[in-house]
């Protein structure tokens, strides 16, 4: 017989475990700040274990109530909690994360002490000292792993979520952290096999390709891999499974959004206006990067006679505006305020391409189950991409939207079992449900 008092203690920000988790995480952040002020340099190993240990135990404690509770939707109190409802805590976290990104990109010397705490790990993995990007990669991966564990606990009733989350944790740790470090150790190019053009835009720039090809056989394979993934795997996999194969199963940006960003998914803007802005922005970024890439190749082909250094300037500006400001500072720093997928929705050119395939040439759809929708709004509220899922479901239409990353949370939170993500025949996916009595 289950102890009833345990199941009554359903997760909410008020539970003692979650308070302890929050306190431990705050200690981890405090230790990071202390380390950054210089102590990290003198005691790197101590602070390394302190920071990592505190972050992990904080996350564990925070997740305990989810592991203990009965399996089911755990959204109680989200709209009252200042952490998830754009309250003071949310703003505090947003300022902290935005500040971290600004310092990381433009004033890394302020992080010197913290960077040094990563030296032992960096030496072990890469045989070279840590730098700001290694620190960032370590923190990023840690966040995906810890919050991924929390996500699995929260959605433990769904094998789709469990498998998908293990997948993003695996790709982040293996392909985006360990493997590039290992390549460096072997004196090979630091290559990320899970990122492709146009998200990792420089992988199809002439300079990168020249450098890779000159670095040896493995470099040639990397160029080949990049081309295959961009031009063959992307359309084929998106046709078969929708853009989710990448956005919520492989991509590192998606990994962070699905794990660290999950507590904020309800803050994405669902208005028609936001959708209009989204379509203009994300496709403009796509045009920008395609033009930039084309210009670089044209210039390289004409040995710099057309544009001189101008095309380099173009790519520098893309890197600054899109690569740093948009995907980092705004995309992640604003999680608590604008939801977890700001970058993916408004800025990612890879998402734009995948979305075009998904909308016009794919077997993927979210099927609406007949006339069962009660218009409650849970699906739309918890869509991190800001899709008004309900607008389709209540009309008996399948949801086929360029932006849908296939996270599957709409289907989970639906209290009437109306939504199902699936890959069926392409034909007929736009045909809405019509009652038998109303068919002519």
């Amino acid at each position, binding site marked *: 017989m*289950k102890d*009833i*008092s345990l*199941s*009554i*203690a*359903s997760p909410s920000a008020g539970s003692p475990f979650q308070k302890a988790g929050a306190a431990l995480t705050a200690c981890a952040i405090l230790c990071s700040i202390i380390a950054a002020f210089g102590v990290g340099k003198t005691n790197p190993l101590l602070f390394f274990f302190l920071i990592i240990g505190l972050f992990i135990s904080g996350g564990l404690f925070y997740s305990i109530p989810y592991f203990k509770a*009965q*399996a*089911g*939707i755990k*959204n*109680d*109190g*989200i*709209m*009252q*909690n200042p952490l998830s409802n754009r309250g003071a805590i949310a703003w505090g976290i947003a300022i902290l994360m935005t500040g971290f990104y600004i310092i990381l990109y433009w004033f890394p010397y302020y992080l010197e002490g913290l960077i040094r705490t990563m030296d032992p790990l960096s030496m072990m993995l890469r045989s070279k000292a840590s730098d700001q990007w290694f620190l960032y990669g370590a923190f990023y991966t840690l966040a995906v792993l810890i919050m991924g564990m929390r996500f699995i606990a929260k959605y433990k*009733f*769904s*094998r*789709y979520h469990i*498998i998908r989350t293990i997948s993003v944790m695996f790709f982040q740790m293996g392909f985006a952290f360990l493997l590039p470090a290992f390549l460096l150790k072997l004196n090979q190019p630091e290559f990320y096999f899970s990122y492709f053009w146009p998200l990792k835009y420089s992988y199809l720039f002439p300079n990168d390709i020249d450098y890779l090809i000159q670095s040896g056989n493995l470099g040639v394979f990397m160029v080949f891999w990049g081309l295959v993934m961009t031009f063959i795997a992307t359309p084929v996999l998106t046709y078969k499974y929708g853009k989710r194969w990448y956005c919520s199963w492989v991509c590192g940006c998606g990994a962070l959004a699905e794990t660290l960003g999950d507590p904020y998914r309800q803050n994405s803007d669902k*208005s*028609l206006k936001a959708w209009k802005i989204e379509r203009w922005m994300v496709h403009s970024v796509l045009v920008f990067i395609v033009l930039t890439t084309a210009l670089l190749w044209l210039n390289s082909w004409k040995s710099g006679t057309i544009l001189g250094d101008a095309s380099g300037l173009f790519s520098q500006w893309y890197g600054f505006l899109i690569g740093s400001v948009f995907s980092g500072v705004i995309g992640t720093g604003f999680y608590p305020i604008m939801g977890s997928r700001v970058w993916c929705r408004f800025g990612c050119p890879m998402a734009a391409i995948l979305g075009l395939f998904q909308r016009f040439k794919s077997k993927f759809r979210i*099927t609406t*189950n*007949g*006339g*069962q929708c*009660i*218009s*409650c*709004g*849970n699906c*739309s*509220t918890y869509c991190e991409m800001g899709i008004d899922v*309900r*607008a389709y479901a*209540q009309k008996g239409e399948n949801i086929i939207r360029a932006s849908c990353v296939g996270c*599957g949370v709409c*289907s*989970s*939170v639906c*209290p*009437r*079992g109306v939504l*199902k*993500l*699936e890959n069926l025949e392409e034909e007929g996916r736009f045909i809405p*449900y019509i*009652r*038998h*009595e*109303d068919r002519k």
Partner: protein
Amino acid sequence: MNIVIIGNGITGITCARNIRKLDSKASITLISGESDHFFSRTALMYIYMGHMKFEHTKPYEDWFWIKNRINLIRAYVKTLNAIDKILVLENGKPIAFDKLIIACGSKPNKFGWPGENLHGVQGLYSIQDLEQMERNTQNISSAVIVGGGLIGIEMAEMLHSRKIPVTILVREKFYWNNILPKEEAELIGKHMAGHGIVLRLNTELEEIISDNQDRVAGVLTSTGEKFECQFVGLTAGVKPNIGFLMENELETDRGILINEYLETSVPDVYAAGDCAQFRNPKQGEPAIEQLWYTGKMQGETLAKTICGDKSVYNRGIWFNSAKFFDIEYQTYGQVLPEINDQQKSFYWEHPNGKHAFRANYSNTDESILGFNFIGIRFRQVIAEEWIRERKTIAFVIQNLEKGWFDPEFSKTFYKDISLSYFQGIKDGNNE
């Protein structure tokens, strides 16, 4: 054409939207005393539980009504003169109409229990009820719910989300036993108990006891038990909200009487949704339908009639769905709490008590009559097609996979169900 609709719930809204689709010129006015804009009543519980805010429960953005030229008036209707085609709002403002649709919904049942009007005693139907519940449940230590239906369990879940211990008094032998067969009802009862909800079966409310300040202090039950509580939820069903239509030309009984075209006794006046009552309901169908789905279908049908394509309301093959804490329920076709002598029933339940399947079929030609799915999602089109085409139970059992709607990678049960069915045939156990 000047069309006025009383009530901005799912029925009135669906009707208004469909009229606009069929007729771009008609003047459409929606009157509601409850809210400025349409919201999903079914989602009220999620506001209390903090899953959503009120704004999330609005299925259309506010500009939608302006764009579609649907005039919204926030007021209660005081009197209606159906013959002269004019109604008067509570603020005294008269509104004339060519055609009137009354879709004013329900209100919670009260059965004259002693103490039913004390502070802290309430039903749950409207947004105002929800606001009252928010006030009534501040800093309380226990609650009692009267009535074992859908709103009762929703209220229990709401209170549970605030860690308020709940006791539910259920008149029947099992939870929701006037709808659910015994096995399903017991399964849901156990699931509720697992969440710490106390169910008192075969128990009716005798009296609500007050403290010395006109607030509820506890309840007395028909079995002589006494429960202390600071909140009592009355969820023993709802009834048509037609108090404002008394002394009127419209014929009413429990609800506004209508025919199969949803026409009332007065020309150009129609009624639909919770507040309407069919004069001659079809065999096996209730006279008053108080469901989201039926309200929506009635609104669609009525819009056609109003726009000149006179249509009979036909609710088609029955379906409904609900969620009991973590367990979803879908039903298609006819599944009565107890089968009659022309029916057989096959029931399967997972050992973990979280998933179940029932198929009722004819004992003459073995054709399928209806399904209950508990903790299983199933495709409506498939279930309906099988019922309409009178597929045999054996065919259905062998083809369950086709309608399976659970998320990808979920454990499936159709093989277990099929195994259990054919084993039962071999052993001669199936009813």
